Every structure is written in structure tokens, then in C-alpha cells.
């Protein structure tokens, strides 16, 4: 029953490929996933801008945009039109070629990174043996695009913003990659399709075997999400582009279409790294309960992706911004040790796999959780600098 | 039609370009860039020989290339730290100005 619905997209693609002459079939078979990815995620980007503005508005006790179309649903169209018809201003002393190439260098690697994400049961554009490495390699090139943007504007503040942004992205790449390594260790393969495959099935018939339901997976998911927010320069880590800080930081000299491209690149990066988090820890396209397995796997992937997007919007509306030094302290002094402890806990989990006495699962969980909670509490206390945190007291203007 | 010879020739040319830059340019950072290019050319040699040589299942060439990438990263870090320290002292990265030990 689930098969026809499930494989609808795959069979559509195969049918389209068969319509072409045999000489072009290889090319078409490669182009269709690429075109589909670009189309789907670009429209997801438009939808997310609307969701973000409405969501932030509601979180801040106001309505979001509601003038353009019913409930503001045509707002992304209006935004897109505005960006396209704005005048493209380039500073006189700017390095024109690099200024032009920077947004391109931002968007292209991020789109490349989507090629290894498995969106559904047989829906992955390319199944590399070292898929996760390809993803991180594509992500590492975005830092250079940030630098190109900041430097080519020949603006001191833009350069300062770019250097801060690169320092932040590099610092958080270490916890990102190391927390992803725990899922790789558990699945035994660098290929994302294999990692999703290792999360199939259910414990006791109702609890999915996702990595997030193990102690190391839970901690890994949290650490991964924190590192992902920092990588995408989202609040609370958006010092590089906070509007009250350094105006747009490295993007201050960009206007019109190029700014829209940077915006697109940032959101696409956010979706890509959320997609990776879903693949690594939340079971990819697997359904959470056996009763709902008839829903197509693509729908589950996108449902989880929307969950992540909502989480990012929620964080943005709720948390204050971290200063650069607080941010770097957090990355190097808290996240990196926690991530290393997480790797050890994954190893402990793996080697206690053979415990089969009754209650073994619970014991393994407890051991893992204690091994993680200890350093977490100790590091937290040590890094708080001895400050006592009491209940909040509010002072209102009289 | 690219055979082993093409890759080796390319690697030799890359090495030559890196060497030319390292010998001719007077800015310390560009010399370091040249050194990185030379290391990369050697890596290309290793991978090409792994692909076209005997026993590709013993991934010796890839191992060497992997370790070479790691060592090159470490060397780039130390080299650039040295350049920054030198700059702080001499306020210049021009190699001709670093001659206080001369004569």
C-alpha cells in the first residue's frame, strides 16, 4: 500500500528519463534531481522567509506581514521583486570581480551539499561512499565566500565583520564535524544512505531506532544543532550580521540581487545542515511510529525539516545574542570537550552492545547519560566563573 | 585518453610553477603559497601512481597522499605563525628586508 505512493517520485523520474533519446538519458537522469533540488529548496526558502517574519512577529507579540495577499502569503513575491529591481551599487574602489563572485561562491557549494542528502527511500542525488565528507567539504568553501565578500568591499567594517564571521564558522566547524562523527561511528559508514539505513526498525515495536533516542545521540543532536546555528550565523550567534551590531557585517556593501543571493545562500545552508542533522540523528526519512509508515518518506523528511526550521525561528525570537568572545569561549571551552566526551560515550554504547540481561537497555542508557551529565555539569559550573545565578528580578519603570 | 604520463606532466609543471614562485617572489606569504603548490604537485603524483600502478587495492598511494595533506596543513600553520611573528618585529613581509644576520 505504501509502495505506490512512496515511489511515485522515483517512478516519475524514471519515466521522464525514458522519454528522452538514449544518448541524452544519462545527462537527463543527472539533471532531474539537480533541477528538483534547486526548485524545491528555493521555494522552501521563499516560504521560510514568510514563516520567519510571521513567526518572529507572533513571538514578539505583534502580527507579521499581512498586507500583501491574505495573511501575507504573497510577501515573499513582493520581497523577491524588491530585491530584483533594486539598483546594484558597487563601491568605487571595490574589487569588482571578487565582489561579483562572492555570492556565487556562497550559493554554489551550498547547493552542491544537497546532492548527498537522502530525501526519501530511494531519493538521493548521488550516493557517495564518503558522503558526509563531501557535505563538510562543501560547507567549508562557504567560509571563503564570506571572506571574499568582506574583503572586496574595501570597507574596514566589512572586513572586520568578515574576519569575525570566519573565526566563528571555523570554531564551530570542529564541534559540528565531531558530533557528526558519533553517528558515523554508530552506523559504521560515511555514506549518508547507510546512516539512515542503520536507523530503521523499532525497539519493542514502538520506539524508533533513531540515533536521537540514545544518550550519545541525544547529546549529539543538541551539540549538532548548536553548532549548526552557529555555522549558519543565526541568532544567538549572529554577531557577524546583526543589524544593531555591525549593520550587515561583511554584507554591508551589497545591494539588490547579490544581497538576495547571500540571503538565499544562508538559508539554503541552514536547510542543508538541518537536513544533515535529520539524517544523522532523527532517522532521515523513517516514520516515527509503525502505524504511520504509509505516509511517503519524503513527507516525513520535510516534516522533520519544518520542525527544525521552526526551532531555528523560535531560537531567533527568544534568545539574546552572544558576544564574540562569549561565542568563542563557548565553542572551544565547552563544546569541544563535550563533543569529545560524546565520542567516548558512543564507544561505550557500541561496546556494551552485547549486554543482553533484562534491563540491559536501561543500564546502558543510564551509564551513557551519567558519563555525559558529569562533564556537562562540571564544565558548566567551572565556566560560569563562580557566578551564582538566582531567580530573576524585574525592574519596571515607574 | 589521459594516461599516467599526462598526470605526471601536469604534476611536474605544477611543481615548476610553485618553484618559480618560491624563488622569484619576495613576499614571504607568496613563497609559502609556492611551497603549498609543490606539496600538492607531489600529492598528485602519488594519487596518479596509485591509480595506474600495480596493486591499487593496497591503497599505499592514497595513504601517503592523506598523510602528506595532514603534514602540509601543520606546516602551513607553523609557517604562517612565523611570518606573523616576523611581521610584528620588522613591520614588513618583504624577504629582502630580513637581512640583519647578513655579512
Amino acid at each position, binding site marked *: 500500500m505504501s509502495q505506490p505512493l512512496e515511489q511515485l517520485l522515483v517512478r516519475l523520474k524514471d519515466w521522464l528519463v525514458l522519454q528522452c533519446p538514449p544518448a541524452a538519458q544519462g545527462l537527463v537522469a543527472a539533471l532531474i534531481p539537480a533541477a528538483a533540488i534547486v526548485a524545491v529548496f528555493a521555494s522552501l526558502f521563499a516560504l521560510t522567509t514568510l514563516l520567519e517574519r510571521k513567526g518572529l512577529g507572533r513571538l514578539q507579540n505583534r502580527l507579521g506581514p499581512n498586507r500583501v495577499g491574505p495573511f501575507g502569503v504573497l510577501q515573499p513575491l513582493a520581497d523577491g521583486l524588491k530585491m530584483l529591481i533594486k539598483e546594484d551599487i558597487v563601491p568605487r574602489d571595490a574589487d569588482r570581480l571578487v565582489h561579483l563572485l562572492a555570492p556565487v561562491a556562497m550559493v554554489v557549494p551550498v547547493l552542491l551539499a544537497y546532492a548527498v542528502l537522502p530525501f526519501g527511500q530511494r531519493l538521493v542525488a548521488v550516493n557517495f561512499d*564518503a558522503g558526509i565528507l563531501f557535505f563538510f567539504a562543501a560547507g567549508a568553501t562557504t567560509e*571563503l565566500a564570506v571572506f571574499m565578500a568582506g574583503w572586496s568591499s574595501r570597507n574596514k567594517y566589512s572586513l572586520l565583520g568578515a574576519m569575525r564571521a570566519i573565526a566563528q564558522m571555523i570554531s564551530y566547524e570542529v564541534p559540528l564535524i565531531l558530533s557528526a562523527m558519533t553517528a558515523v561511528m554508530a552506523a559504521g559508514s560515511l555514506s549518508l544512505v547507510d546512516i539512515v539505513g542503520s536507523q530503521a526498525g523499532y525497539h519493542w515495536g514502538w520506539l524508533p531506532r533513531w540515533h536521537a533516542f540514545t544518550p550519545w545521540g541525544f547529546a549529539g543532536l543538541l551539540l549538532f544543532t548548536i553548532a549548526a546555528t552557529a555555522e549558519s550565523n543565526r541568532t544567538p550567534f549572529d554577531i557577524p550580521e546583526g543589524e544593531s551590531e555591525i549593520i550587515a557585517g561583511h554584507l554591508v556593501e551589497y545591494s539588490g540581487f547579490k544581497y538576495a543571493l547571500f540571503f538565499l545562500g544562508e538559508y539554503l545552508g541552514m536547510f542543508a545542515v538541518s537536513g544533515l542533522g535529520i539524517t544523522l540523528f532523527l532517522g532521515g526519512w523513517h516514520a516515527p511510529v509503525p502505524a504511520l509508515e504509509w505516509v511517503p518518506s519524503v513527507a516525513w523528511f520535510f516534516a522533520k525539516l519544518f520542525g527544525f526550521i521552526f526551532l531555528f525561528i523560535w531560537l531567533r525570537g527568544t534568545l539574546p545574542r552572544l558576544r564574540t568572545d562569549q561565542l568563542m569561549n563557548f565553542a572551544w571551552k565547552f563544546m569541544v570537550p563535550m563533543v569529545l566526551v560524546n565520542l567516548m560515550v558512543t564507544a561505550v554504547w557500541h561496546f556494551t552492545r552485547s549486554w543482553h540481561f533484562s534491563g540491559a537497555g536501561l543500564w546502558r542508557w543510564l551509564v551513557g547519560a551519567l558519563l555525559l551529565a558529569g562533564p556537562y555539569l562540571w564544565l558548566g559550573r567551572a565556566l560560569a566563573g563562580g557566578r551564582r545565578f538566582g531567580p530573576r528580578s524585574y525592574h519596571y519603570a515607574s | 585518453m589521459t594516461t599516467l604520463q599526462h598526470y605526471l606532466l601536469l604534476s611536474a609543471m605544477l611543481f615548476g610553477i610553485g618553484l618559480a614562485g618560491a624563488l622569484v617572489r619576495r613576499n614571504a606569504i607568496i613563497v609559502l603559497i609556492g611551497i603549498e603548490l609543490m606539496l600538492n604537485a607531489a600529492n598528485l603524483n602519488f594519487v596518479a601512481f596509485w591509480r595506474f600502478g600495480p596493486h591499487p587495492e593496497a591503497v599505499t598511494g592514497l595513504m601517503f597522499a592523506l598523510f602528506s595533506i595532514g603534514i602540509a596543513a601543520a606546516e602551513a600553520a607553523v609557517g604562517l605563525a612565523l611570518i606573523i611573528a616576523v611581521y610584528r618585529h620588522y613591520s614588513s613581509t618583504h624577504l629582502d628586508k630580513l637581512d640583519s644576520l647578513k655579512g
Partner: protein
Amino acid sequence: MLITLAGAAGAMALRNLVHCALCLVLAFGGLAALYLQLGAEFIGFAQVLVYVGAVAVLIVFAILLTRNSETRVERLSAASVPLGLGIAVLVAGALGGAAWFSGFAPAAAAARPVAGVRSIGERLMTQYVLPLEVLGLLLTAALIGAVIIALKEPGEPG
């Protein structure tokens, strides 16, 4: 191939330092594509991750931290150019000639070897575990050393 050569030539010849660094990135990218063409996926991705993601960013930071306010362009001394170029041409010619005119068997281009990540990992952990540990130690020592060298002494101006 041409992209790699063009990038390398640009990295060595351009006057503006940051343009040199960006051409170097182009050369690294071309090399990664060559590795993929040779069937070494792991090395290709590792090349992009390490070289483009880390070494190029290091070089760019060093360029930014060692900029003089007056000039970003440098002067070449006229005497050293032909000598340096001559030596480089000799070396490249010797290497290239040795490669081109030696008799390598062309039939070796038949089967494309499959280097799964699993085999690389197994070799790293069994046959090459000592170099792996030494590399880890070396990287730690190098990074600590780099930090100490580049650290600003308290009281030092600038």
C-alpha cells in the same frame, strides 16, 4: 587540468596578494577535481576540506594580518627573476621529460580501482596506525607551536 594550471600560474604571478590566494583556491579546486577523476574520492573531498577550508583561510588571515597600510603590491627585483625562472624551468623540464619519455605500460589504464572508505579506514587502523598517531601528535605540537609563536608578548607594542 587547465584550471589547475591557470590557478597555479595566477597564484604565483599576480601582484595583489589576495588575488594570489584566490587563484590558489582555484588551483586546489582543480586538483580536487583531478583526484575525483582518478577515482580517489576520499582524497578529493579531504583535499577540499583541509586545503580550501583550512589552509587557504589561514593564508588569507595571514595576508590580512600582515598588511602594510601603504602598499599591497610588491616590487620584484630585476635580477632574481630570470635566474629563478630558469631554475624552475630546468627542474620542471627534467621531471616532465623523465615522466613523458619513460616507458610506462599504457594498459594499466584499464580497470578503475575502487578505494572504499572502509579499506582506507582499515589500513589506517592496522597497517598505518603508527603514522596516524604520530600525525596526530605532530599536528598538536605544530598548532601549539604556531599559537605560541604568533602570540603577542605582554608589553610588546603593536
